[in-house]
């Protein structure tokens, strides 16, 4: 294949100048860079690089030469970065500019046409320029080495990442399997427990009745936990399947609140559904959102005291519907607010009436909401209560 523009444009510019940079005579100019109006080095260089050009001149006057200075020349059309080198000669400064090291060959060839003194100076200058560029190669090599090492790290990281992913998958698979295997025996125990409760309702001593009731509560709690664990490992394994259908969120909310009200009343707590505004139909998985609502409201009940009120509010915003559940109960410290959405992350808090939590509810709720493209967040003050708010895109 052929390249359009070669970066080696065969540039060789050689001229004599006085100590102030005024051009005395142009010796060689393969690209025609030097025009009659440019009679100083400063004028030859792009304005942006003129401070550098002035430094170039002072470097020559202080040390007799300056090597391989990269400066931009406006040229005819596209600006070019040239490498400048210069040294003092008997009648002023000998200045050379090339496009790259390979152009030095041109300068060398041109030098043969000069008188002996200038030829010697120019050849020396070319040699010094070449050596200086060699020093730059050290940096190119160092840069490539740096890049190689970065890539080594990246490879290690990619490999580690995939190993971690595998371990996580395996872990989820195992916990899913365990939960699944626990579920059947638990259901059987619960069923026989219920049977025993009914059979012995009239005959058993009050103590046996109480023990059976405790056992049934524990079994129910355990089954809830196993269900949560199954839900959670399915979601973590990427199996959050949303069966979206057109749903009226206000109707769904009313239904859940009504159901939760009966449970809350047993604890002497009231749930108030604030007036619901006109609300768009949403494309959501109603069962999953119901699960979220049940989780948030039952948590509020769990952590409220008898006589307190829980408010549930639905608002319609720009492109989204928001539901907030606020209580005036125990509240959550700032530090714990960061952890409660992690599985088993929050403190294993006991409800005001001794209720237990599986430790997975909020983690599942957040994943369900995020799976819908929404957000679930908390605002809370310890001792004053909490407000959980989630949004769903309309």
């Amino acid at each position: 294949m052929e390249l359009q523009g070669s970066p080696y444009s065969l540039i060789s510019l050689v001229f004599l100048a006085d100590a102030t940079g005024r051009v005395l005579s142009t010796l060689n100019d393969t690209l025609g860079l030097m025009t009659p109006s440019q009679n100083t080095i400063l004028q030859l260089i792009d304005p942006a690089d003129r401070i550098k050009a002035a430094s170039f001149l002072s470097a020559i006057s202080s040390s007799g030469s300056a090597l391989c200075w990269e400066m931009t020349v406006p040229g005819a059309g596209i600006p070019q970065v040239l490498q400048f080198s210069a040294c003092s000669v008997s009648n002023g400064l000998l200045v050379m500019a090339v496009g790259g090291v390979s152009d030095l060959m041109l300068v060398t060839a041109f030098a043969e046409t000069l008188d002996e003194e200038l030829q010697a100076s120019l050849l020396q200058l070319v040699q010094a320029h070449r050596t200086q560029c060699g020093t730059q190669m050290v940096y190119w090599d160092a840069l490539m080495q740096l890049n190689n090492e970065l890539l080594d790290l990246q490879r290690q990281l990619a490999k580690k990442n995939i190993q971690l992913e595998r371990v996580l998958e395996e872990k989820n698979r195992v916990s899913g399997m365990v939960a699944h295997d626990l579920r059947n025996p638990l259901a059987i125990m619960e069923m026989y427990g219920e049977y025993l409760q009914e059979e012995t309702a009239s005959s058993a001593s009050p103590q046996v009745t109480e023990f059976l009731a405790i056992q049934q509560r524990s079994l129910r709690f355990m089954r809830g936990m196993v269900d949560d664990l199954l839900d959670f490992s399915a979601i973590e394994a990427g199996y959050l399947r949303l069966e979206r259908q057109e749903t009226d969120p206000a109707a769904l909310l009313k239904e859940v609140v009504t159901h939760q009200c009966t449970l809350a009343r047993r604890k002497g707590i009231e749930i108030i559904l604030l007036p619901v505004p006109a609300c768009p139909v949403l494309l959501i998985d109603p069962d999953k959102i119901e699960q979220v609502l049940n989780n948030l409201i039952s948590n509020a009940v769990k952590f409220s005291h008898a006589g307190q009120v829980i408010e549930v509010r639905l608002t319609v915003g720009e492109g989204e519907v928001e539901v907030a559940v606020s209580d005036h109960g125990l509240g959550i410290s700032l530090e714990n607010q960061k952890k409660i959405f992690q599985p088993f992350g929050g403190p294993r808090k006991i409800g005001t009436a001794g209720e237990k939590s599986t430790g997975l509810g909020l983690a599942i709720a957040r994943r369900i909401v995020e799976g819908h493209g929404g957000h679930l967040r908390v605002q809370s003050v310890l001792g004053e209560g909490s407000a959980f708010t989630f949004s769903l895109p309309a």
Partner: protein
Amino acid sequence: MLVENDGITENPNKLAGDYLNARRAELAQFAMHRQYSQQPELESGYSERQKIHALEDMNYHLQYLAEAVTRESPLLFEDYLRWLKVFLPRVGVGEGDVVNSLAAVKETLSEMMPVELAVLPTRYLAEGMIRMTTLPGDLPTVLGESAPMALLATQYLNSLLRADRRTASRLILEDVEKGASVRDLYLGVFQPVQLEIGRLWQLGKITVAQEHFCTAATQMVMSQLYPLIFRQERNGRTFVASCISGELHEIGLRFVADFFEMDGWDTYYLGANVPTTAIISSLKEQKADLLGISATMPFHLSKVEALIRDVRQSEVGRRVKIMVGGYPFTLDPDLWSKVGADGSARDAQEAVRVGEQLLAE
């Protein structure tokens, strides 16, 4: 040094190579005088500058000759001649002058070197002078239209030459999405593009900056494919890859490590800056079955040899198989045995095949 520490007598080829290296400057001077006395028109016609260059060239002849002789590898020397034939006309040196300069070196060596040491170098020079006439004088592109993925490779290269690595990367990722295999992209796009970049650089069509950029960008694109590479089922085998310290050419070895990984091996890529002791402990730690060493610059071959020797002396080294590869090993198919390895391969695909074979033995 005639005898190594462990008491084994050095092989005569290495002695000849050491001799050429130790007395290179002097031999070059003699050869230069000889050529000038045979071609007085050169001495009078050359400028001072050209004379310096001509002497430098004599030095290079001897340097590459030394490496080829040490390894008993005429093919390494032939590659140098191939390079000379392309390069020298560009700086105004004719083929005839090159052949004459080789002849001058040959005569100088016959005269000055101990007879038993001069045999191999003078033979390589004599063969080289004949070979010189039939070697190609141009650098053909490997991206010809007949190459299997030439179109994609050319588009990819053009994007890189425009400093547009995003398009380059998009081209590759889109091809992956269409079902292209990572192996094909490595061997059909990245490898020929690297060689083409080398060619363009030698022709003076691209700068050092462009060459470095293209390589770095390709390394980056390769890393975007990592998620595909590391997904294979493991086969229980482990490959550790290491370059020689100071070797900057490492894409080749990266290819090899990634191909092993895609074949289900567990691979560890150590790069070029790991000392021998750390390589050995890594072999032990990872329970490696195979060590791969890569070198591109011929003057790194003695380091390869030393590394292999050190590894073999370690406890873990006794059960690990060792493969070598890289540019010089692709030139000379027997070179691997001369540095003490168990095998080599010309490319990454073949490397996996040979690696499996070695372990089956």
